[in-house]
C-alpha cells in the first residue's frame, strides 16, 4: 500500500497523526496555514481587550481582564509551538503576520468602543471561539488537538467572566443596560462571521473535512452557536439584532438571517475598521522588543562561555 493510502486509512480510523509521521504535503501546508492563522488570532486578539485593562472599573475587573488577555498570549504560544512541530519557523510566521501576508480572525478588526464590549466579547466572541474549538480537540493532527484541549479548558473562564460582567451591568442603571444592548448590536453579526463564509463558498472545507482537520462545516457550527446564544440572550435580557431570528420547531433549530458577507470580505481583505492599526501595533511591539531578545541571547551565550552551562 502506498504512503498516501496508508495515511488516509489511519486518519479515517481516527488515528492521530504525529510530527514525524509521513503526511501529504497538502495536509502539512493546510495545517501550518490554519494553525498559524489561529495563533495570530490569539495574539492579535489581545489588543481589543487589552485596550480596557487600565480602564476596567475595579481592581477585581482589572485582574480578571489581565488574566484573560494573558491566557490569549498563552494560546498563541501553544499554537505557534504546534506549527513548529510541522517544520514552520516562528520568525517566519511573525514576519508573515506583521507584513500582512497571513491573516487572523476578522473579528479582531472591530474596535472596542465601550467597556460593555469586554463582557460581550467574553460572551459572544469567546463563545463562538469555543464552538469552533471544541470539535478541534479531536482534529487529526496530535499536537494541534492537544493544544486545543488545553485552550478549551481555559476558554470557559473567558466566556463566564464576560457573561457575569454583563449580568452585573444588566442589573444596574438604564444607561448601563443600554450600553450592553448597544454593544450586542455591534458584535452579534461579526460573531456570526467568525465561523467563516457559508459552506457553499468555503473552498477549503471539503478537503479539510476529509483529512479530519476540520470536524464540522461552517454552517453547522454557526447554527450551533445561534441555538446556544438565544436562551443566554433571553436570560440576560438583551435582544439579538436579527429580525429573522425565530425558533423553527420542525427543524429543531433557530432560523436566522445572514450576516453582511460583503462586509466580511472587505474586512478579510484588509479594509476593516482597525486592520491597519492592529498589524501596526503588533509590528511595533515586535520591533521594540528586538533589543530585549538580543540582550537575552547575548547574556545566555556569555554565560555559556564563562560557566560552560547551557
Amino acid at each position, binding site marked *: 500500500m502506498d504512503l498516501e493510502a496508508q495515511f488516509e486509512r489511519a486518519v479515517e480510523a481516527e488515528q492521530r497523526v504525529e510530527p514525524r*509521521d509521513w503526511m501529504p504535503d497538502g495536509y502539512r501546508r493546510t495545517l501550518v496555514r490554519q494553525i498559524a492563522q489561529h495563533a495570530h488570532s490569539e495574539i492579535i486578539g489581545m489588543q481589543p481587550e487589552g485596550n480596557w485593562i487600565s480602564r476596567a472599573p475595579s481592581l477585581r475587573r482589572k485582574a480578571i481582564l489581565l488574566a484573560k488577555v494573558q491566557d490569549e498570549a498563552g494560546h498563541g504560544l501553544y499554537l505557534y509551538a504546534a506549527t513548529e512541530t510541522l517544520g514552520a519557523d516562528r520568525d517566519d510566521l511573525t514576519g508573515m503576520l506583521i507584513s500582512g501576508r497571513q491573516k487572523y480572525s476578522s473579528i479582531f478588526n472591530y474596535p472596542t468602543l465601550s467597556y460593555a464590549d469586554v463582557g460581550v466579547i467574553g460572551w459572544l466572541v469567546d463563545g463562538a471561539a469555543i464552538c469552533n474549538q471544541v470539535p478541534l480537540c479531536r482534529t487529526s493532527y496530535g499536537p494541534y488537538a492537544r493544544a486545543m484541549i488545553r485552550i478549551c479548558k481555559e476558554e470557559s473562564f473567558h466566556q463566564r467572566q464576560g457573561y457575569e460582567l454583563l449580568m452585573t451591568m444588566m442589573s444596574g442603571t438604564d444607561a448601563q443596560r443600554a450600553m450592553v444592548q448597544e454593544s450586542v448590536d455591534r458584535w452579534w453579526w461579526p460573531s456570526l462571521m467568525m465561523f467563516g463564509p457559508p459552506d457553499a463558498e468555503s473552498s477549503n472545507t471539503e478537503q479539510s473535512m476529509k483529512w479530519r482537520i476540520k470536524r464540522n462545516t461552517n454552517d453547522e457550527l454557526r447554527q450551533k452557536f445561534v441555538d446556544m446564544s438565544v436562551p443566554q440572550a433571553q436570560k440576560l435580557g438583551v435582544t439579538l439584532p436579527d429580525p429573522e431570528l425565530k425558533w423553527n420547531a420542525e427543524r429543531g433549530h433557530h432560523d436566522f438571517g445572514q450576516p453582511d458577507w460583503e462586509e466580511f470580505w472587505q474586512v478579510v481583505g484588509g479594509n476593516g475598521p482597525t486592520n491597519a492599526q492592529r498589524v501596526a501595533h503588533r509590528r511595533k511591539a515586535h520591533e521594540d522588543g528586538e533589543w530585549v531578545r538580543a540582550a537575552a541571547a547575548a547574556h545566555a551565550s556569555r554565560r555559556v562561555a564563562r560557566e560552560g552551562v547551557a
Partner: protein
Amino acid sequence: MSSSWPLWEVFVRGKRGLNHVHVGSLHAPDAEMAVRNARDVYTRRNEGVSIWVVPAASITASSPDEKDPFFEPSGDKVYRHPTFYEIPEDVPHL
C-alpha cells in the same frame, strides 16, 4: 531574534507521585529562562509542581517509519500478560 533562541521541550509533573509529562515546547535563550517561561506558559492554573526543560535538539527519537519492525519483537509474546494463563475460578487470591 527568537529563532536564534533554541527550542526547549517542556515536561510538567502534575502533582507529587506522578510522572513528568510532555506538554509542549517554547523558545528561550537559556535553560533558566526556559523554566521561567514554561511556568508562565504551561502552569498558569497550578497544573504543575515541577518542570523539566530539555533542549529539543538533545532528544533522540525512534523513527515512526520503522515503528512496526521496531516494536514487533514484543508483539508475539502474549505470554507476558497475566491474562494468557487460565486458572480455575475457585482458586483464591490469584
